[in-house]
């Protein structure tokens, strides 16, 4: 079945239980990631400044992240939408969401003002909206983990 080792639970979104819901969620997560990548690809300089604004990452990693991360989001999102290596895409998306959640949580806890740069780079997010971004990321993360139980395409189709 390809369940994560040690997980014996049965997720309500399991593909063979509610296929339509699972498909919709797969598309929602995929489209969310593709949409989030567009602005960042167009203006990596602004995205690098946003990463710097988190005050969590060493200088040497900021530019490479600003260049590569949006493309990882784009390809993982597209892979999830079209259903090519969806479990691999979900693995990447879950990891990214986990990093975002940790970064936003740390900054919220220490009261650090920052722009999340999650969608439009022009959109600034301060503490109150950062909280809702955290909630949204947590929901997406939970959905991604549940969807990870999707059967492999050659078996489910």
């Amino acid at each position: 079945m390809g369940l994560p080792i040690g997980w014996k639970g049965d997720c309500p979104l399991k593909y063979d239980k509610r296929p339509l819901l699972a498909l919709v969620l797969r598309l929602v997560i995929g489209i969310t990631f593709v949409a989030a990548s567009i602005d960042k690809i167009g203006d990596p300089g602004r995205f690098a400044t946003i990463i710097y604004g988190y005050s969590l990452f060493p200088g040497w990693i900021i530019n490479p992240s600003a260049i590569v991360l949006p493309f990882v989001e784009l390809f993982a999102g597209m892979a999830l939408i079209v259903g090519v290596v969806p479990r691999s895409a979900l693995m990447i998306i879950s990891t990214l969401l986990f990093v975002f959640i940790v970064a936003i949580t740390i900054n919220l806890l220490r009261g650090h003002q920052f722009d999340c740069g999650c969608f439009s780079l022009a959109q600034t997010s301060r503490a109150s909206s950062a909280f809702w971004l955290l909630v949204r990321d947590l929901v997406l993360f939970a959905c991604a983990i549940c969807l990870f139980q999707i059967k492999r395409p050659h078996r489910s189709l």
Partner: protein
Amino acid sequence: MAQERNEIVQNMVQDFKGGAVLLIVSICCALAFNSWSDSGIALKGQWDRSQGVVSPMEKNTVVDGSREINDLDTMVELVNSKRCTLVDVRSNSQFDAGHLPGAVSLPIEAFDQMIGDFFVEYPLDTCLVVYCAGRECLDSHRLAHSLKTFGFFDIRIFSGGFADWMEGGLSVEIR
């Protein structure tokens, strides 16, 4: 049991392989696009505040580190000597609330409207020291670049800006 475990391991290996392919494709496309795009950035930015204004170092960057004054003592000396004209690029309201002694206001958003008068008042060989809010503000570099295109050549940038001046506990003028 052993077969099931074997299957799980095989599935995970396949998932990791798929993930690795996605990552490699992403990295290759990202690097190719970055080198081709006009909005591309350097692989290493300038994120060390002690080295001056922070910047991702875009291809078309206006940041010129060689013009920066990073040392507050040097700046204090320059201000006291009155040898150079200080140019504050922040907004009018910020300028009115407090600025470096003797500074003139040339807000970057009003550059097109004000450059005519500035041009008349200050000859091209005037020593100019431009500053903005702080080390995370690129407006001083943008304005210096614009002034350079108008023919001013003796331009320096106080990278610490108003924030460093205030942190140093130095006096400011209020209009």
